[in-house]
């Protein structure tokens, strides 16, 4: 069986056509209105996001909803403070008219978003302008269109443009999260693969819960998921195609395979294979189905994660009261330990920009999420408590999502996000308990 490595055409039709409508990006930052996201604790930028003006009743509702999603996205990022619509003095009713900047200055808005939504040939089109209230300049303006049911994506794409314009860093709102949705009592948990938008909306379960599933991760084109599935008693690594809903085992191995992750080019899956008491790391080429063994020891070698350029692999080595993060070359050569603090280090995940490795750290009966440089220096703990585990990076390397388990018989895991600075921890609402999140790359 061969795997298609090209995007499914059905997915492309759902993709959005983005046009650069006004190319007025750079002057803004030279004029001083910008958000510095490298300062650590930040002073969020007051921004007014007005309901997009609708040219019909349908599009008016969509316009208001789009503004709400944008405000939620930007507010949750921690870098913006969306002003409450009740405080607005000017009500924007004509998108083509310049705003009354005095009205916006009066409510302390530093930036202003105006927009327009319309139905055109069965598609929903949204245009927006990001204004610098102080200089009365247009900072950005774009137009996006999609099918009306996909309206939230328009809002996410616009949020990304605003975020990028103001921070100079690409956004991360037009993304999805794959995770494990949990229900039932703690000793008989039902676990289903689920997928949702990064803001917790559009949740969809992909498996029916009859099989135990763990550790899903996206392919680089976001069309496939690799995960561990217990099947009917032989736990193995599987692939799941989101569009075709097809499930496929990755290699018929005699032993348990687990902890899979895609290579950055999407051509390979790296994973652990158990043999007796040892777990070693293997990589499978998805086209040739050839398997290459990368570690060979009696230890527990698991949780492999590629560097974004594919040249190196971070993984954990454990057993006998020790668990540490190692980095090796992609061919398995030159393994060296990078974690050096006290405690146990697990689940290394390389940031998309290559600058950090996020990890779970265990010590003193507590579980923390932290980051370190790929050489092991610069360790920083972002959040710490009873049980935090399994970091995953937003595509812009600024935000980490993880799960936090609660003590107690009726307790369960929930998803949280935190800025890489350690500030702005946020609960990601899910309909049920949730664990093992993995962030997709940008969808567009």
């Amino acid at each position, binding site marked *: 069986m061969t795997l298609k490595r090209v995007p499914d055409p059905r997915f492309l039709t759902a993709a959005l056509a983005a046009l650069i409508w006004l190319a007025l990006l750079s002057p803004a930052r030279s004029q001083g209105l910008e958000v510095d996201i490298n300062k650590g604790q930040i002073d969020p930028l007051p921004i007014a996001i007005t309901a997009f003006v609708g040219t019909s009743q349908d599009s008016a509702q969509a316009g208001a909803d789009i503004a709400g999603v944008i405000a939620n996205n930007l507010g949750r990022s921690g870098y913006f403070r969306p002003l409450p619509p009740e405080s607005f003095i000017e009500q924007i009713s004509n998108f083509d008219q310049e705003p009354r900047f005095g009205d916006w200055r009066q409510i302390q808005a530093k930036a202003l978003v105006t927009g327009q939504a319309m139905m055109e040939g069965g598609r929903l089109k949204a245009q927006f302008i990001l204004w610098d209230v102080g200089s009365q300049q247009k900072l950005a303006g774009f137009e996006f269109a999609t099918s009306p049911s996909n309206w939230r994506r328009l809002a996410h794409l616009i949020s990304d443009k605003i975020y990028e314009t103001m921070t100079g860093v690409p956004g991360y709102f037009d993304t999805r999260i794959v995770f494990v949705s949990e229900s039932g009592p*703690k*000793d*008989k*948990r039902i*676990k289903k693969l689920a997928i949702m938008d990064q803001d917790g909306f559009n949740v969809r379960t992909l498996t029916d819960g009859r099989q*135990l599933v*763990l*550790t899903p991760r996206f392919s680089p084109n976001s069309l496939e998921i690799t995960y*561990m599935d*217990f099947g009917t*008693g032989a*736990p193995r690594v599987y692939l799941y195609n989101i569009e075709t809903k097809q499930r496929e085992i990755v290699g018929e191995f005699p032993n*348990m395979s*687990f*902890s899979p992750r895609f290579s950055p080019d999407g051509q390979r899956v790296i994973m*652990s294979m*158990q043999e*007796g*008491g040892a*777990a070693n790391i293997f990589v499978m080429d998805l086209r040739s189905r050839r398997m290459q063994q990368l570690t060979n020891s009696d230890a*527990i070698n*698991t*949780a492999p994660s590629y560097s974004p350029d594919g040249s190196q692999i971070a993984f*954990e080595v*454990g*057993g*006998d*009261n020790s*668990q540490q993060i190692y980095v090796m070359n992609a061919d398995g050569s030159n393994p060296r330990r990078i974690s050096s603090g006290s405690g146990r280090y*697990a*689940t290394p995940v390389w940031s998309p920009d290559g600058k950090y490795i996020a990890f*779970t750290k*265990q010590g003193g*009966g507590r579980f923390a999420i932290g980051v370190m440089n790929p050489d092991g220096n610069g360790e920083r703990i972002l959040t710490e408590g*009873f*049980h935090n*585990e*399994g970091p995953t990076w937003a595509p812009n390397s600024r935000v980490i999502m993880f799960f936090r*388990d609660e*003590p*107690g*018989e009726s307790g369960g895991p929930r998803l949280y996000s935190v800025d890489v600075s350690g500030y702005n921890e946020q609960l990601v609402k899910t309909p049920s308990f949730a664990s*093992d999140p993995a962030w997709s790359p940008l969808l567009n």
Partner: protein
Amino acid sequence: MLRMSAGFKALALCFCFLALAACSKKSTPDLEAENGLGRAAVAGSEQQFKTEVGDTVFYLVDQSTLTPEGQETLRRQAAWLRQYSHVMIQVEGHADERGTREYNISLSARRATTTRNFLIAQGIEASRISTIAYGKERPAALCDAEQCWSQNRRTVTVITSGAKTS
């Protein structure tokens, strides 16, 4: 008072039943004993294996070597399995919740391997013993304290076929 006496009656009935069971025990093999339900388990049954032999072996934190108690339980398991040679088993490996997911999957596989290898060394054919590793996914005890975690670091020997029905 009326209620109380009704309770006493029930207790008395129960006691009679237990006494009967104790009588019938004399004619059964040594391995069989009362199982606490007021009835002796059928020899060679899954129930007997669980209640009289012991299906669970406990492990120390992050360890996959057997304790003396664990070895004792496994010797009893091996003796029973030698007696009922058609029984096929699966050793389930488990870890407590105080570890990361992937690591615990592998740690529980190590424990299942240890248990399996011990049974093989005791003369049980390897082909009768499969293993599965559940990591921290199926805790047996649910409090968030060592008294529960210690019960979750375990292997459970589950009969998959060949047992007598009770």
